[in-house]
């Protein structure tokens, strides 16, 4: 099975990084989360309800929709916060990439740990620009808002192709496909990683892998 990979690129000002990443990551997760599964007898299951909420950005003229789940929002904010910190500490001209990877787990025999097989990877390339005055910042607010709108349309277009999605699992397999640790929604298993590009544009002065959901704990 091939992993489908999508790349989105944005150029933002320093203080817009958080909101731009949140907007795009939440838009993707909105489409890749379902309600909680409740398995009943004989292999049937019912699905809980996913609520949504509008989030206005403070530094960008943009509003995005995310699932109503404080736990999920906290996890994404944490990852984005770490990415932002790494970007500002890099001291280079502020280029980096944050990746949201959806994967399935495949159980292996002991002593081998479970395999993680990605089936969809979204990479968001970020270029941080510095602006000289308030006028430019105001224009940037609007321009980045429009750009994010275009990215949302791109995301939706990819989703609507209805390409490979993992099969709906049985009760015993559900943790290999979905993240069942949240109490109100159930996203597909995902992990967020990031890379900071150094000023030469070569691969990485710092590569740090952060597993936000440590589902590999064995």
């Amino acid at each position, binding site marked *: 099975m091939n992993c489908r990979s999508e790349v989105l690129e944005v150029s933002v000002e320093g203080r817009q990084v958080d909101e731009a990443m949140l907007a795009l990551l939440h*838009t993707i997760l*909105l*489409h890749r989360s*379902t*309600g*909680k599964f*409740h398995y*009943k007898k*004989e*292999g*049937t*299951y*019912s*699905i*809980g*309800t*996913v*609520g*949504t*909420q*509008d989030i*206005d950005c403070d530094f960008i*003229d943009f*509003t*995005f*929709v995310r*699932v*109503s*789940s404080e736990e999920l929002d906290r996890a994404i904010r944490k990852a984005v916060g770490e990415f932002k910190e790494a970007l*500002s*500490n890099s*001291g280079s001209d*502020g280029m980096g990439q944050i990746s949201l990877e959806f994967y399935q787990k495949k159980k292996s025999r002991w002593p081998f740990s479970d395999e993680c097989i990605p089936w969809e990877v979204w990479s968001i390339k970020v270029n941080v620009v*510095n602006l*000289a*005055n*308030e*006028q430019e910042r*105001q224009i940037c607010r*609007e321009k980045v*808002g*429009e750009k994010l*709108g275009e990215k*949302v*349309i791109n*995301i*939706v*277009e990819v*989703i*609507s192709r*209805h390409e490979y999605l993992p099969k*709906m699992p049985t009760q015993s397999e559900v943790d290999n496909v979905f993240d069942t640790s949240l*109490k*109100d*929604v159930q996203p597909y298993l995902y992990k967020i990683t990031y890379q900071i590009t150094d000023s030469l544009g070569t691969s990485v002065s710092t590569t740090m892998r952060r597993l936000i959901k440590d589902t590999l704990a064995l």
Partner: protein
Amino acid sequence: MDNDLSPQDKKDLDKFIKFFALKTVQVIVQARLGEKICSSSSSSPTGSDWFNLAIKDIPEVTHEAKKALAGQLPGIGRSMCVEISLKTSEGDSMELETWCLEMNEKCDKDIKVSYTVYNRLSLLLKSLLAITRVTPAYKLSRKQGHDYVILYRIYFGEVQLAGLGEGFQTVRVGLVGTPTGTITLSCAYRTNLAFMSTRATGEEDGVGYPGVEDSQEVCTTSFSTSPPTQMVLPGKEGGVPLMPPQPCHGTQAEHGRVSSCPPADPGHHLSGSPSTGEDAETLSRSGEAKTACRPEALETTFTRKVGAFVNKPSTQVTTTGLDLPFAAFAPRALNSEENDPMVHPPESPTTASPLHGSLHSQDSVDSAGQTQDDFVMVDFKPAFSKDDLLPMDLGTFYREFQNPPQLSSLSIDVSAQSMAEDLDSLPEKLAIYEKNIDEFDAFVDTLQ
């Protein structure tokens, strides 16, 4: 074409399409109410949330949608459309976008109705939620209120895009294949926001802010082997012929706004009566005297700032030399007589506020009919100022102030270096502090 579909599947599919259409209308209209929408997730299925999404049902909207559908379903050649338009307090209106739920003939025979189609429709609704916040009408609708309101109209049948002006753009929200055809959802939105001052007579007020009641139809959320639960479907079922878009009734004269509608007017049929819990402010515009019919977006009127008792200016120069924001939109002064401060007292200038909206292109809302071909030099001569000891006058100071240099503490390089130096010097500093620890203890004691 339906030969391969079991009767149960056909029934389910029709039910899904019907409720999908109703939910689509709810999402679109709620996204244009001007408020942020919020609904909560629930891990235990209540059996009343279609497509596993918490989308509230505004009763008036459901009523309008069902009335437009008149018992039919969207199908091939029969599209359901939601038209969003803007109406100013002066009665001018403009279509902003049209959302189309259509069906084409491409069938997907092998797809499972009760499972795959249902989940894909759910995904399509999520995409709709995301896209409705992205089209230009969203920002306009968030700012509606005093100067204009956003209205909706639902119709069924052929898609009409002529009202969107030239150069309208289309964005596709998504598509879902079914055994009887492929459902597509798209939005055509206007890009040319130059205002047309066509007065639509007999228009009633559209989207009220009705109280949201949770009156939901029962739906299924069970999957796998068991078929979906049977439903109770109130409302019209079958047998009702397709009716053309209804002419407005002209009976609604709420809040002092009288609407007299000629019976043959096929124009905007707007929403039903708002509920009593409605915000009265939004509808009592008839009582307000509004001189400007333009939306809040950009007010770019420059008037001559001439100090009192200054001689009448005789020349007119362009503003292109100025580095003021949106200087290009300064209107032409009609003639010096009209701008003479002696004859007409100068009005307080309304400068462009860059914080207002993102509609740079939209500024020709101009009931006075001024053209914007020529530009006017706005000479900053603050009242009572004179050339002082300083070579710089207030105007020049103001212009320079617009572009302050970057604060040195904000540049990353400097802070990164000092951070590294700080870190290096830490061990030394710690050693010094440890040596003087007695002094510090004594100091702390004096404080207590």
